[in-house]
Every structure is written in structure tokens, then in C-alpha cells.
């Protein structure tokens, strides 16, 4: 049924259609509306055979989900930012134990400085933790990915994280087609665990593994993720046959035919980039877009195939590996490693801590890449005068004070000044 609803509500409804049996969650912005919606559905009896467990922390949320999953229940949780960091030990345990838990991550920056707005730092912080990570472009895809993700997780017994841009998607009202219960039931069979704690047939899960077998256990984790590279496109194509729309998959391409310049990005920013691609194509620029949906496992060979023929690639990402640059650009470099004529990879970091990414800034950035690009990592719309002022201050005095507070004070002075100018202008 087509609805105009908040993204979080759409995801909650899609998750409920998947018949989760245990939901444990601790509130953190911008994910909260999703579990609030699910909690309400459980309370009102709209979501039956499901226990909603209020816990005291994120660490407990995922730990309870681990217990529930090990006992054979379809388990779900959601978090963001610092909440994910607080549960990170359990994040590794979930994947190490091979428990097919589904988690929504309402992507948000990580402090300090504290910031509730969107970027992909939280997802990147656990990119090596052994979870499958899928990124949604729209709220329709966010809803659909959850349905696909339960089946993906349970087929391979791997946990899956559905990454959804905080606020930009979670708090946006847009049209979403919520499928019927019958169609979701036909796509997603009941959970049949490969390992289960059952008093009638006791086993233990969570052995200590020494040097003699640890590599082999890890290798099999890696092997299962490589199986996901085959399963993900199959699920996306079956989903598209049943539900009549494209959602999920490894990656999607837009206007890549004979493209000299290809943009690679994840999440909701792909919509804005498509508009820029249309405008630049109309100007005769041979530009295209590759939307990466599956970040872990990274579809190396598909990326090589899709990107190999371009001259330039701009990797636009909402995350920064401090001291290195863009982590996704680094990953793509490795995907293109040893190609005879490898494209030039230009790394751009944008949208940190919720900084809006505008069409006009993207247009400038993409044209610059075609004109030879830049060295190292480009920070989109970086305010050099603020940065320069702070570097100067640090040079001048040893006790320069906290950087965040200094910058905020500088910004406040500037805006007060422009306020005075505005008043004068009005008079």
C-alpha cells in the first residue's frame, strides 16, 4: 500500500511484516522513531508473537539479541553513533558466533565534538566487524532492504546491518509502498536456525579457540561473506520479480554508458548526485554514477568491471579515516589494484556531521575531477578561513584552548556581525 510516511515509520512497518520475535532496543537519535514505532505495534497487539525488551544500554540491547538469536528467535535491534560504539564488543561477538541478527543503523556522526547529525562514521567504525553492511538510497529501499536482509542473514547465518542516513531518511516524509503481509510471508520463510540452544538437545555456543583453529574460524567467516556476494543479487532479483521494484543488490549504475567520469557513493546522497549527473549530461559531460548498496562484503570484481573503463573516478563519502583520508576511496583503490589501465581515483569527503551536500558544490567538484583532479583527500566546502584562523591561534599561543569551542565562538561573532549589517541594510 502506497503511503506518505516518515522513513522511520516505513521501516518499522516493514520490520513488523518480517515477524521479528524479539526486539531489544535502547533509544538514541536518530534511530529512536523506528523502535518507538515497533514498541507501539507490540503494545497495541498489531505485532504478535514478539517480545519487546527494554534494556538499560546498547550493550545490553545487542547482548539480549544475541541470547534470543542463539535460542532460535528472529532478533532485531537498532542503534546509531555512540550507541553502536557502546555495543561494539557484542557487534564482533554476533558475527563471530554467526548469529543472523538484523540491526538498523541510523547513520550519525561520532563525537567528540558531540553531533547528532548524519554521516557514515558509525558504520565505518565497525566495517571490519564481520557484519554485512547495506546502505539505503531512499526510504523505499530502506524498508525493502530490511525484508531482504532478514532472509540474507538467516540463509547464511551472518548478521546484517541496514545503514540508513539519519534524519535525511529517518525523519523524511516521502512515499513508500508498504507490501502486504502475504507477499512478505511468501518471500521470507520462518527462521530455521543452523545452531540453537535447546534444552532437549543441549549444545554450547561460544567456545574459546586457540591458535590451532582461530584462522580457520575467521576464514570461514570471510568465506560466508563471499557467498553473500552471490546471494545478495539473487535476493534482489527475486524481490524485484515479486514486488515489482528494484531494491538492494550489490550496486546500481546510472548513466554509466561511455562515461569518462564515474562517481561512487553510498546512501541517500545518490539522489542528489543523480540530479547533478542529469544536469551535467545535458551539458555534454560524460558522467555517470555507481551507487554502492553492499559495502560489506565489498563486491571487488563487480566494481572492477563497472569502474575499470572510466578515466576518472570520484569517490564521494561521508566519512573520514583521520590521518588517512576517505576509507571508501581506499577500498576502491584496492578493488582497482593491478589493472593495466586503472582509472584515476579522486577522494572527496563530504557531509560530515550533517553538513548539507549541495548540487552546486557537487557540480564544481566533479568538473574539477575532469580537469585533472586533486592530490590526496578533498574536503567539500571546507571553510578555509575558519581553519586558517584556528591554525594561526594554535601557533601563537600554547594554551590555545579547545578547538570546537574556539571555532563556535568565531562563528557566533561572524553571525552577530552579519546581523548588525542586516539591521543597517533594512534601515
Amino acid at each position, binding site marked *: 500500500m502506497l503511503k*506518505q510516511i*516518515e522513513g522511520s515509520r516505513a521501516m518499522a512497518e516493514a520490520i513488523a511484516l518480517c515477524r521479528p520475535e524479539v526486539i531489544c532496543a535502547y533509544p538514541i537519535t536518530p534511530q529512536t522513531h523506528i523502535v518507538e514505532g515497533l514498541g507501539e505495534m507490540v503494545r497495541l497487539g498489531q505485532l504478535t508473537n514478539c517480545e519487546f525488551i527494554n534494556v538499560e544500554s546498547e550493550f545490553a540491547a545487542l547482548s539480549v539479541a544475541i541470547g534470543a538469536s542463539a535460542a532460535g528467535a528472529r532478533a532485531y535491534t537498532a542503534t546509531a553513533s555512540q550507541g553502536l560504539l557502546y555495543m561494539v564488543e557484542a557487534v564482533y561477538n554476533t558475527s563471530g558466533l554467526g548469529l543472523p541478527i538484523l540491526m538498523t543503523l541510523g547513520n550519525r556522526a561520532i563525537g567528540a565534538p558531540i553531533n*547528532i*547529525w*548524519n554521516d557514515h562514521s558509525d558504520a565505518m567504525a565497525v566495517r571490519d566487524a564481520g557484519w554485512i553492511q547495506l546502505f539505503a538510497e531512499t526510504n523505499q529501499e530502506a524498508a525493502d532492504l530490511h525484508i531482504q536482509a532478514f532472509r540474507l542473514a538467516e540463509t547464511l547465518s551472518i548478521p546484517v546491518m541496514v545503514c540508513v542516513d539519519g*534524519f*535525511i531518511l529517518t*525523519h*523524511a*516524509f*516521502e*512515499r513508500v509502498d508498504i507490501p502486504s503481509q502475504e507477499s512478505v510471508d511468501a518471500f521470507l520463510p520462518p527462521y530455521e536456525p543452523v545452531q540453537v540452544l535447546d534444552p532437549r538437545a543441549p549444545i554450547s555456543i561460544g567456545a574459546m579457540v586457540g591458535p590451532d583453529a582461530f584462522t580457520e574460524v575467521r576464514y570461514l567467516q570471510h568465506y560466508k561473506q563471499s557467498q553473500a556476494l552471490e546471494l545478495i543479487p539473487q535476493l534482489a532479483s527475486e524481490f524485484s520479480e515479486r514486488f515489482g521494484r528494484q531494491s538492494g543488490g550489490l550496486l546500481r549504475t546510472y548513466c554509466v554508458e561511455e562515461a569518462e567520469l564515474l562517481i561512487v557513493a553510498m546512501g*541517500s*546522497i*545518490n*539522489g*542528489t548526485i*543523480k*540530479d547533478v549527473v542529469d544536469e551535467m549530461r545535458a551539458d555534454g559531460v560524460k558522467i555517470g554514477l555507481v551507487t554502492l548498496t553492499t559495502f560489506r562484503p565489498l563486491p571487488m570484481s563487480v566494481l572492477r568491471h563497472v569502474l575499470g573503463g572510466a578515466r576518472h573516478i570520484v569517490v564521494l563519502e561521508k566519512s573520514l579515516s583521520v590521518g588517512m583520508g576517505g576509507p571508501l576511496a581506499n577500498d576502491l583503490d584496492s578493488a582497482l589494484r593491478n589493472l593495466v589501465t586503472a582509472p584515476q581515483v579522486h577522494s572527496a569527503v563530504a557531509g560530515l556531521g*550533517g553538513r*548539507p*551536500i*549541495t*548540487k552546486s558544490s557537487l557540480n564544481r567538484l566533479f568538473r574539477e575531477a575532469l580537469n585533472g583532479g586533486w592530490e590526496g583527500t578533498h574536503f567539500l566546502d571546507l571553510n578555509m578561513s575558519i581553519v586558517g584562523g584556528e591554525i594561526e591561534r594554535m601557533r601563537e599561543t600554547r594554551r590555545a584552548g579547545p578547538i570546537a569551542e574556539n571555532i563556535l565562538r568565531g562563528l557566533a561573532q561572524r553571525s552577530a556581525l552579519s*546581523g548588525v549589517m*542586516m*539591521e543597517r541594510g*533594512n534601515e
Partner: protein
Amino acid sequence: MFQVRIHGRGGQGVVTAAELLSVAAFRAGKHAQAFPSFGSERTGAPVVAFCRVDDKEIRLREPILEPDCLIVQDATLFKSIDLFEGLHPKGYLLVNTRKSFEELHLEKVVHRLPEGHARMVPATELAMQHVGRAVPNAALLGALAALTRLVSLEHVVAAIRDAFPGKVGEANVLAAMAAHDALVRHDVAA
């Protein structure tokens, strides 16, 4: 595409106004996208919310930088922020106030817009009268339907009833209809 930017203060239902507008447009068969300026939703703090309406899928996710219509829920904001940034030269302006544009020192801005595109409506008073609380959003959406014809009053009313079934919704519907009437009657008088 038609883009609406709504300025107000936390507690005035700014975000809800954008969401309701998107639902009204959806009911009219259009694509719509509503989103808040994210974060500073403390009571009294300046808040901005956005709504885009189009006949095709809306992919753009940047904030609305060049609105076709500006709704100002709180006229005291004019003192602190440049609300008019990017307003389209043929755009619309709807201000919640009892004062005149002269009293608000807005003549220059209003003269730049086509005649009849800048209007005032005492939305807070209408809300107090019908809803009993200072929530001008529903009234302003009723006025918007009269000013721009982006959405019809019927669709605005249906969106309000969707979101707030029962007494609260009906009270807001009355406020929206009163504001709509106020603008239409003024048209006739002018």
C-alpha cells in the same frame, strides 16, 4: 518542482506543517518530500522545515536553498535571520501576523514579489480561537492552499484529519478553513 520553506520556532509545529503539506500533496497524486532542518528542536529555538512537491520522483536531498514559497510562522524571526535568502523572484510569502508589512519593515521584499504573492494571516489568533493553543501551522496551510493553489483546501483538511483523528484534528481543520476564507475574502474585497 515547487519548494516550500517554513520558518518558525520550536513548539509551533513547523516540522508537522511540512509533513502535513507533503501528505496533502500526496493525496493530490503528487510526489512530495518533507524534512526538518534537523536537531535544534527546543521550544522557542528557530526551526526550519522543508517540503518539495513535484509530478515526478524527488531525488534531491539538499536543503531548500531557492524556495518558491516561504511561510513564516513567527514574525519575530525577521530580526535575527535573513529568511528571504534564495526566495524565487516570482515566489510567494505567507506571514503569520496581525501587523502590516510596513510595520514589519518588509515593504522592499514585498515589492520585489509579484502583486498578491505576499500575504499576511493572523494564524496564531485563529489557532487560539479554534484550537485553544498557539499552534499556527494548520491555519497557515489553509492559507497556503488559498495563496498558491499548490494543494487544495480539501487535501489539506484530509491531511490534518489523517494525522490528528478526533477533536484536535477537527479544531485544526476549522482553523485551516478560517485562514483559507480570510485570504479568499480579502481577494474578493481587493
